[in-house]
């Protein structure tokens, strides 16, 4: 696959910010696009590396995932679970309404 055109524009920043759930003021979109383009442009040098047939490295640990026994060893700690909640009621987390 060929490298993408690294052309992040204000609209792309808006989309990324939305996906990242970060509020960005309108007048910050363009400057941010420039910043990101600067970094992405610098990253582009990776295209010089021949990675044909190379396996991606996802971890520095080269063993299989350890497995645990199916035992109930946790839970029953509602107070701890809710201790830092900005809002809670009757054992539930209370959050802004997620449906209309």
């Amino acid at each position, binding site marked *: 696959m060929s490298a993408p055109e690294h052309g992040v524009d204000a609209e792309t920043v808006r*989309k990324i910010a*939305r*996906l990242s*759930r970060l509020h960005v003021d309108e007048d910050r979109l363009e400057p941010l696009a420039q910043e990101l383009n600067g970094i992405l442009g610098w990253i582009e040098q990776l295209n010089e590396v021949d990675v044909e047939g190379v396996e991606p490295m*996802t*971890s520095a*640990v080269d*063993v*299989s*995932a*350890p*497995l*645990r*026994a*199916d*035992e*109930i*060893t*946790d*839970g*029953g*700690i*509602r107070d*701890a*679970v*809710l201790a830092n909640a900005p*809002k809670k*009621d*009757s*054992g*539930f*987390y*209370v*959050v*802004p*309404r*997620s*449906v*209309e």
Partner: protein
Amino acid sequence: MFTAERVADKKDWMSGETGDWELIIGLEVHAQVASNSKLFSGAATEYGADPNTQVSLVDAGMPGMLPVINEFCVEQAVRTGLGLNAKINLFSRFDRKNYFYVDLPQGYQISQFEHPIVGEGEIEIQPEDSDAVTVGIERLHLEQDAGKSVHDLSPTETYVDLNRSGVALMEIVSKPDMRSPEEASAYVDKLRGIVRALGTCDGDMEKGNLRADVNVSVRKPGGELGTRCEIKNVNSLRFIREAIRYEARRQIEIIETGGTIDQETRLFDSVKGETRSMRSKEDAHDYRYFPDPDLLPLNLEQSFVDGIKANLPELPDARKARFIAEFGIPAYDAGVLTADKVTGDYYETAAKGRDGKIAANWVMGELFGALNKEGKDLEDSPVSAENLGGLLDRIADKTISGKIAKTVFEKMFEGGGTADDIIESEGLKQVTDMGAIEAMVQEALDANPAQVEKAKLNPKLLGFFVGQVMKASGGKANPQAVNQILREKLGL
């Protein structure tokens, strides 16, 4: 690229203004693994606990908390894969599916995207009144469930319970091989039977432990594929059929009036019997899957898989074949009797060492009928399989007639007890004493001389006398003996 080769039976076509339409259906079934603890944490999975009491700090997405895989869940995924005649992938990996939602504490769901633990397989389904159909399995992967949002405790806020957060699910993805609502529900029913037989999922659809996302599109029979819509979280076989029917009709109407189908996710409203668009998201999803760096790849040993394989219980298809061979029952009956483990076990206990056909007729006729009438499940049947077997024995050894047996069964169903007890206490034992029967026959002949003459000319009228004798005996006379003596006496 998928090309739906099989064209539906004509009887499954839906007619529209512009002609007939064919339905193309695929399903994603989520089956909760029957594990004690969650996929990545040691919190319990039991249904119905108080909110947030079965939540570990891992399930709540606290900073620095890390997942560790539950071995039992891996085993059950492999077992299920074997039950689906599917390829087990010795290498699989967990990925993160990133999106924000209030019941998703980590901001991502741990799932298997690129390398699922189970690959392609297939199962055969038997829709009612149709030929058997083979449905391809695309894959099965493990993933964690989300928490639950409660919207009716406050008008302005959402309450979140994370008890389900992190519970292990097997997502079983079918190929789009189904062509009618009946095929789709037969498929889910079959899957349900398989996971229950394997013990990997309890299959309880009411609790949401097994639920389906249904993909539906329509096309002109054998023609170009249409755009599909996904109906989320349908949790009964009836709703699956209703949702598909409604959705197909909706799509046909849109296309026929010149519209196009938007690929979208829809919800089924079981009260109104209609599907509706989930509130359109402001932006398209982009889940940004990538390998979860908190987990290492899963490398299974072939011996691990072989060990599971060696201990697989008999599955519905194998059992069906065995029932046909062993009990001599028709394929259809065998299919019904092996659809789930409880029925199969019941039938097998009742039929063992007896006439399999008669046993099948009793289970599927009297028993299912009585249970249906009472709205009871087989698990709660007042007549145990052993007791039904005892009843069949009394029919076989001619202690009672088939007709009396129905009376005995009714009493067993009402008050429990064995057939022998009821036959004894109600005095229902069949009269096989030839002398006594002969006396009753003679009595009947003497009382109806005109009928005797007619019967001599027309043997079909013999039934009249049989009826008289049976009536006189209170139904207890052996009908064959009555017949035989009558024929002798009338010189037929």
